[in-house]
């Protein structure tokens, strides 16, 4: 007998058998890289609604903020014994107003001047991913195109993962590039550019390790570099550097408790960028199996420091400046609940999430932006799997 018994994983026949076995605990680590055993079609709709601003925070304009409806449609199918292909289509319908700039109110405090009449915009993104599976891993190539009134993006991404001999460790790497074009709409508020472009490139490297049948841990590092026009054209007082480097360290831990038929999920993310923003994200969740149902509550805490060129009222004498609340120092809490139910070959999922932010909830010092956002998000989805 040869040192290493043949797995047959290069054989479409063995991989086809392995794909159905992979759901059983005795085979899970062996067949992690089989193509999907089924064709899957799904549709998901999310409604995102930002809370209206407090009247005291608004100097001029509507208190209402953004509402966004996102509809996603996808299909993923195995092709032969070693390939899969997926098509993703997403439509975002946005309406509402956003802060134009921050000024000084009658009370001497920073207040928001909103962008005027409610805007309506629609974005469509179409992506295709093809994936190849071999004995010890898989690799995927994705292309996507996004189009809306004032923004176009063409993106390419490549990812690959490899399993160790004992299938307990998986190494993952990915690279992506996006070429974006900004052509802001001029009919709503004054805009000072016609067309600009930016490019974003990203690298990721990570590893996950099965510690036992019930425990898995992962860690990953990503680097993203953007160059070009990075200023928000719809903000009156906004001038950002033409390059932006971002580092992210992410980690996660999962443990299944067989006595409870549930699993604990803990994730931590550390972020740092060349604009001076650092952030921490901690998320804790629980997945509870209840027959054909799964109930998953979660809680997430986020805190970030302000960008070097941020101030609540922008200093337009500086080289770079911004009053965008997304660059300010603040903390945020998210509480959510996800429920899924399996009915034969159909899966129904629903999710509700509440996000609240406050300048005083953060771990970093800094001045609070007057337009921090709070929102609700609700999602409903339907997935169908068939041979």
């Amino acid at each position: 007998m040869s040192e290493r018994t043949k797995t047959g994983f290069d054989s479409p026949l063995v991989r086809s058998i392995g794909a159905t076995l992979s759901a059983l605990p005795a085979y899970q680590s062996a067949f992690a890289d089989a193509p999907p055993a089924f064709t899957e079609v799904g549709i998901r709709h999310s409604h995102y609604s930002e809370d209206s601003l407090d009247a005291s925070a608004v100097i001029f304009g509507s208190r209402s903020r953004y509402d966004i409806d996102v509809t996603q449609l996808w299909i993923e199918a195995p092709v032969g014994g070693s390939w899969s292909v997926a098509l993703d289509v997403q439509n975002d319908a946005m309406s509402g107003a956003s802060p134009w700039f921050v000024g000084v109110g009658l009370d001497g405090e920073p207040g928001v001047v909103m962008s005027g009449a409610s805007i309506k915009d629609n974005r469509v993104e179409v992506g295709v991913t093809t994936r190849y599976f071999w004995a010890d891993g898989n690799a995927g190539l994705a292309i996507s195109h996004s189009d809306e009134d004032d923004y176009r993006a063409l993106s390419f991404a490549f990812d690959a993962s490899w399993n160790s001999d004992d299938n307990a460790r998986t190494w993952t790497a990915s690279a992506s590039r996006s070429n974006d074009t900004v052509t802001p709409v001029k009919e709503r508020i004054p805009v000072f550019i016609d067309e600009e472009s930016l490019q974003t490139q990203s690298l990721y490297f990570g590893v996950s390790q099965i510690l036992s049948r019930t425990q898995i841990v992962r860690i990953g590092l990503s680097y993203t570099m953007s160059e070009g026009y990075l200023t928000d054209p719809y903000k009156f007082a906004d001038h950002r550097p033409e390059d932006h480097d971002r580092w992210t360290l992410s980690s996660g831990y999962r443990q299944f408790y067989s006595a409870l038929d549930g699993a604990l999920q803990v994730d931590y993310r550390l972020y740092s960028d060349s604009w001076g923003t650092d952030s921490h994200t901690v998320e804790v969740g629980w997945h509870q199996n209840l027959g054909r149902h799964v109930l998953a509550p979660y809680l997430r805490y986020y805190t970030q420091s302000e960008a070097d060129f941020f101030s609540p009222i922008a200093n337009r004498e500086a080289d770079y400046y911004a009053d965008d609340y997304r660059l300010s120092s603040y903390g945020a809490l998210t509480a959510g609940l996800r429920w899924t139910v399996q009915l034969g070959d159909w899966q129904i999922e629903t999710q509700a999430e509440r996000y609240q932010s406050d300048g005083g909830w953060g771990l970093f010092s800094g001045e609070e932006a007057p337009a921090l956002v709070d929102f609700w998000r609700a999602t409903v989805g339907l997935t169908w799997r068939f041979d």
Partner: protein
Amino acid sequence: MGGPAQVRLIHPPSETPAAERLLDTVGHRMVEMEAKLSRYQPDSLVSQINRRAGSGRYTRIDTETRQLLETCRTLWQESDGLFDPTAGALRQIWDFQSGSIGDPTELSEVLALIGFEGVSLHHDGVMLEKSGMELDLGGIGKEYAADVAASLIREAGFTQGLVDFAGDIVALGNNYTGAAWDIGIRDPSIPERALLTVALKDAAIATSGGYFRTLEHGPNQVSHLLDPRTGWPVTGPSSVSVAARHCLIAGAISTVACLKPIDSAREWLERSGLDWLMVSPEGEVTGPLLEQSRS
């Protein structure tokens, strides 16, 4: 299991209590699986499914049973119907458990009850659409049990052992001497004798062959391997042994090979990409395992 079953663990003396607990766990799990999947046990899940055949009623099944049935469906499709768990209905004609033979002229009626397309499988339920249909998971049950036993041993942290369920074998690590486990492959013409020996480590081997159980029909001994498309015992290889990482894969590939004519069996085995050994009815031995073996 339909034959002798043993699990051997190699461990330091200090781990004896843990090893004994593990063997108890494995034993209980095997009893549990047999109680669920054996068609010979009247209270098993498979027996319940068979009793409701043709009633229009689904029987609730768990994830494990569902995935095993999905695996059966994949094998049925990949083997062009040769691997068919609904061939259990042929027990009405060929009963290898009791050693009796029914009226072969009734085969056409029984064949109407065979075909995996008559199995309606949902996420948590299964139904046999025609009255008289029967499911028999014997084609993968023992091999699956061997893989589960091996998985339990690994999860408990033991790295050396041998699972042998009536000739369906999983070898973990090395044997007592620090070398790979020596596994004898039976001579189908003289089943008490080993034809040759194969060294196995962190791998499985399964053997299918007509000599395991036979019935007398006229002047002939007929094998227990039945072609579900004709209802008659097959006259393919005397035995086929396949080595793979998992016993279920090895067993499924070897079972289907035994149901094919010799040349088709060879093509099927080569298609699997696994190491195999085939013994023809004339006693000719071929396959990659022959080159790796010792007589």
